[in-house]
């Protein structure tokens, strides 16, 4: 099972075993990892699932869709080059991911 490492804005980390096919958002929310709000439950409507993806992992992810790109301009903490909406990142077998959550989502 792939492991997702969530680091919060204070630097505290948590490792969660993820089911391939689930999103990085779902994996966090279902297991009670704080820092990702995800009000819309993954339907790309709220921009409260913002994460910063580690540089090395970023290149392995499928590209950002136009809608995600627009939504990223409206996140509570300003986007950076490594920003993604975690509901749009699917976990793939054999691929660990490292993400950092912003100080706030709302």
């Amino acid at each position, binding site marked *: 099972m792939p492991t997702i490492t969530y680091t919060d804005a204070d630097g505290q980390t948590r490792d969660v075993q993820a089911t391939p096919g689930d999103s990085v958002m779902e994996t966090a929310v279902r297991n009670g990892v704080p820092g990702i709000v995800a009000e819309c*439950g993954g*339907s790309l409507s709220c921009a409260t699932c913002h994460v910063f993806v580690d540089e090395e992992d970023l290149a392995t992810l499928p590209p950002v869709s136009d809608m995600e790109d627009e939504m990223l301009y409206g996140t509570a903490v300003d986007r950076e080059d490594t920003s993604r909406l975690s509901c749009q990142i699917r976990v793939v077998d054999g691929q660990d991911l490292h993400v950092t959550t912003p100080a706030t989502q709302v």
Partner: protein
Amino acid sequence: MSGLLVVGSSQAGVSLATSLRALGHEGPITLLGDERHRPYQRPALSKEWLQGTVTSESLLFRSDSYWPEHGIDLVKGERVIRVDKADDGSGVAHSMSGAQFAFDRLALAVGARPRRLVMEGTDLPGVLYLRNADDALELKARLPDVRDVVVIGGGFIGIEAAASLTTLGRSVTLVEAAPRLVARAVGEQTSAHLLEHHRSTGIEVLLGTSVRRITARSDHVGGVELADGRVLPADLVLVGVGVVPNTGLAESIGLNCADGVLVDETAVASDGHTMAIGDCANQPNPMPGAPPGDRVRFESVNNAIEQAKVAAYAITGRREEYAGIPWFWSNQGAVKLQIAGLSTGHDRTLVRRDAGKGKQSVLYYRGERLLAADCINSPLDFLAVKAALSKGLAIPFVAAADPAVQLKAVTQPAPVPVGTAR
């Protein structure tokens, strides 16, 4: 030692239990609901789940291990039918199966139920409503035998389901009694845009049209007879004519109700102890500048989450008034509608449009004050309006009128009000 009993384990109930644990509350929590399923999110039932693009598992709020790990006693399949409550807010809830659940404090998160159509034929097999997972499962199970669908009601659920069923290749007619779509929740320009879009995808939309009765073909639904006598063929009829808040339990324990359980800014009902949250609760209008005494009952995920948070604070002894800006989304096929704020009381509107990209935002103002926006495929406008409203910032009408300008770029501190001058 009986703790908090939350009745209703959907969006509001789940948010209350999980918010309490996130706040560090350690008291016992029982989260009880009458459905047989593990707690799940409803919005996709008319959209992605119906279209088959997400799995049932992905609708679950939490993993199975979350509940025991966080000391939340999750009870499924128990319907509370009677509550004995003392003056201090504690008591015992009795379920239909005869089980009893003692509580120190009760939270009602019992939601709403579909308003039923009252006319001939509504009890025929194939006449469906869409509120919960069982409704959605039945809808999906019937689809293989369905070609013609009639949706009665042009509100969010009706339109979303119509769009999903069209995507699935069904022939859909949507009948709405009002002269425009979603008249209750969006302005005219938004209704017009939705109408044009959905007609262009092949949905036959009949506005200002009422239904006389539902007709049978052998012992199953066969058609929908309109007021003018025309009969629309139907293998399946989906009724989406609004919901009614579940206030029966609240009324039975003497709580004041009027279109929902009446609660204050902290989600506390009229007995001073019991809480009511989500679709079943009617609360003071939280919008900044709302007329004093004005009340609202929301039917949205955002409200269920926000009100649950306020209730969680109240339970932990901290007074936090409901202050969030109401927002809502509705994905209708290729249309993503996002609404921020409440447009009630607006005196002018501004439309920003990029027709080529199917984008349209309508901003609602009272004088210079921005109240709300309906945004179609325009998430940037939506997020900018939501942020401005939440932070008490202004988006000047004149600046926003230029569709080339980003709303975020023209957001500025609100002018200091001088007397009544604008």
